[in-house]
């Protein structure tokens, strides 16, 4: 077993592009669920909105790349508005149904033959992120090492921009959540009728929250497609949303840094487990394949088993996150 390789991979995963993308999406979800209590089960839909917003406008409509990015945010904002209008007056569990339904609608539509001329159907869209990489000060195809971390030049550039965005957005969220605006959101999370009785237009605040968090989700989507240089409908499936939930709950909903902490823990763990299993000594590996069917395919599936099991256990035993205090948990069980 090549422990050097496994550790290199795991370290690189700790702050890698996936962490940035998922942390950004989780920051958005944190605004929704962690601060406002909105059960958004369609965060991946906002990522898709961002991704297609830029992919389609640049690749098919021939827009300027940067205009495309702005369009992606606006598009996600409008989507949030349209989703919120009918549903934000409803009960929490209804919102969850509608958001998951909406995100699936987006995926089905994007992959459909009808939309193929625009979205590229199942094959999606690619080669549109050129202008982004043109600005890279790093050689795209060269490997760069920093201590235990090692990435391709193009990823270093993505990481530099991604982390800057992530930190800036996180600080912005921290700022607004400390303001009276954020206080109102948290009040709505605790009890929206109480907030209403105190003169707060709950519907309006929820809408702002949905749009704000949705647009942050779009940033994640944009970054993801830039990093992958392609947009494909099926990468935006509900399991991604649930992974984001897992990440948020690992870090603890309603805490400013939890998305970053959660995403980092999650990806390090997944990459470590997968690479370790792939690198098992052949004899052991063969035994495991025979006894518990540990094929390459199934190693890839383990990730989802971990997500599912993790979400189940976290929601049951540590809904306040792995660093949250027992006291907070007690407060949850009024």
């Amino acid at each position, binding site marked *: 077993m090549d422990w050097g390789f496994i550790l290199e991979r795991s370290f690189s995963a700790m702050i890698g592009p996936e962490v940035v993308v998922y942390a950004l999406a989780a920051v958005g979800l944190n605004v929704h669920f962690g601060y406002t209590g909105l059960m958004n089960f369609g965060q991946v839909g906002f990522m898709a909105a961002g991704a297609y917003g830029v992919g389609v406008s640049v690749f098919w409509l021939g827009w300027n790349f940067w205009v495309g990015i702005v369009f992606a945010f606006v598009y996600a904002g409008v989507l949030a508005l349209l989703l919120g209008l009918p549903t934000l007056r409803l009960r929490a569990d209804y919102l969850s149904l509608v958001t998951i339904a909406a995100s699936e609608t987006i995926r089905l539509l994007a992959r459909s033959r009808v939309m193929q001329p625009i979205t590229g159907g199942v094959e999606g869209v690619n080669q549109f992120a050129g202008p982004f990489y043109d600005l890279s000060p790093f050689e795209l195809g060269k490997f760069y090492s920093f201590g235990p971390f090692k990435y391709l030049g193009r990823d270093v550039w993505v990481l530099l921009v991604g982390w800057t965005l992530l930190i800036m957005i996180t600080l912005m969220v921290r700022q607004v959540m400390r303001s009276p605006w954020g206080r109102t959101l948290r009040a709505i999370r605790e009890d929206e009728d109480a907030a209403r009785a105190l003169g707060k237009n709950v519907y309006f605040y929820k809408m702002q929250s949905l749009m704000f968090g949705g647009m942050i989700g779009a940033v994640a989507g944009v970054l993801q497609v830039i990093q992958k240089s392609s947009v494909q409908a099926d990468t935006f499936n509900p399991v991604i949303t649930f992974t984001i939930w897992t990440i948020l709950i690992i870090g603890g909903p309603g805490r400013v840094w939890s998305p970053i902490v959660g995403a980092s823990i999650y990806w390090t763990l997944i990459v470590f487990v997968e690479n370790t299993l792939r690198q098992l000594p052949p004899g052991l590996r063969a035994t495991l394949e025979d006894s518990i069917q540990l094929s390459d395919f199934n190693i890839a599936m383990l990730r989802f088993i971990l997500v599912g099991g993790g979400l189940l256990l*976290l929601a*049951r035993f540590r809904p306040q996150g792995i660093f949250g205090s027992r006291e907070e948990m007690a407060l949850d069980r009024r």
Partner: protein
Amino acid sequence: MPTNSRWARAIATIGLAVGLGVTAGSGQAQAQVSDDLGVIGTLQYTDATGTKVFVAGVELSIADVGGATSDKDGFFRISVPVPGEYSITLNTATLPVGVTLKDPERANLVALVSENADQRVIFPLITADSVVSVSESNFSVRRISQLTLEGLKLGLYLAMAAIGLSLIFGTTGLVNFAHAELITWGTLMAYFFNIYGLVGTFGFFSVLPPPFGGGVNFIVATLLATIMGGVLGFVLNRVIFRPARASGVSLLAQMVMTIGLSILLRYLFVYFFGSRYRVYNEYASQRANEFLGIELTSRDAAAMVVSVIILIAVGIGLNLTRTGRAMRAVSDNRDLAESSGINVERVISQVWIFGGALAALSGTFFGFDTVKWDIGARILLLVFAAVTLGGLGTSFGALVGALIVGVAINWSTLVIDTELKNMTALIVLILALLLRPQGILGKKQRIG
């Protein structure tokens, strides 16, 4: 009471052991059939009379990987070694005379094979004489009747799945996302019993004569799968949700738990069952009977009749039996039911068993065409649409909602692409919430 609960635990343990054993063991039996990935498709066109014609003998290939020839059902599959993008080419020279690609430019498609499923590609074909007046054939009485029938069929199956979801919501307030996996569980159980028999799945038992070693008759398999559905429902409640309720986990946290559970189960299924599509031993492809121009296979007809009988029985059971009335009482007003001496936890347990069994039964029917590891997840939103439309928590509402959703989905193909028909359900769901948040038959919640 203590004896009672010891029994309960014992049954739960056995149920889980049998369940997992079956899955694990059978996976072993599958080990030879390598879990490879592939690009699949069905070549077909619609002739002038509106009948589907499958095209055999067409060659398709992926450079450096391999090729295939379509079989008599127009089906082809080319295995690929790893997930990724593949360019697949249809050899137009091998198409029958008169049949051409709808878009001659697209004899070459790119298929993105992901980690967990075969990727389907579609080469739309036409014949010179298939250019009939589309609008006429679209809106013919025959077509509409056919679609309505398909819709009712889907609606009936959905209803069976939906009632459990609705009852669980009614009695516990929980929106159970893992209901999808109860459906899949039914499909997979029916498949295993059907192919491997009662104990044949435990490897070394497979030498025993049927029904122990080999597969059992599909009808028996269905029955067994339904029972296993009840067992799984019982176990999930007993091991996961009852303790969660007891320690005061909030409903929203429980809902997140069901999502975790859903993904956990779904990927355990794919882990042990594999991502390939399979079919039951019997009834997989049947020739349809025609009646007044409406086609229905006898298998579907039988399944529909069974569904109707079961749904009627459920309706009667909920209204006339003690257990059923207790379920309704708990759904109506839990506190009142509790104070009038009903053992609420017991009722909830029964609801899980009953809901799990119904979901599994619907799963066996949904699996007629293909048995897939995520069959339930694919239709979960339809079930939710049905339940929400009818009003969360009312079982009769679930039935009405399911029929509406089933028919609406099929009718929608009159005007939109078939591929998008499930979207209709999602739109119905959103509209339903918009116009009548409490559902057609539901009632409003209280404030203050």
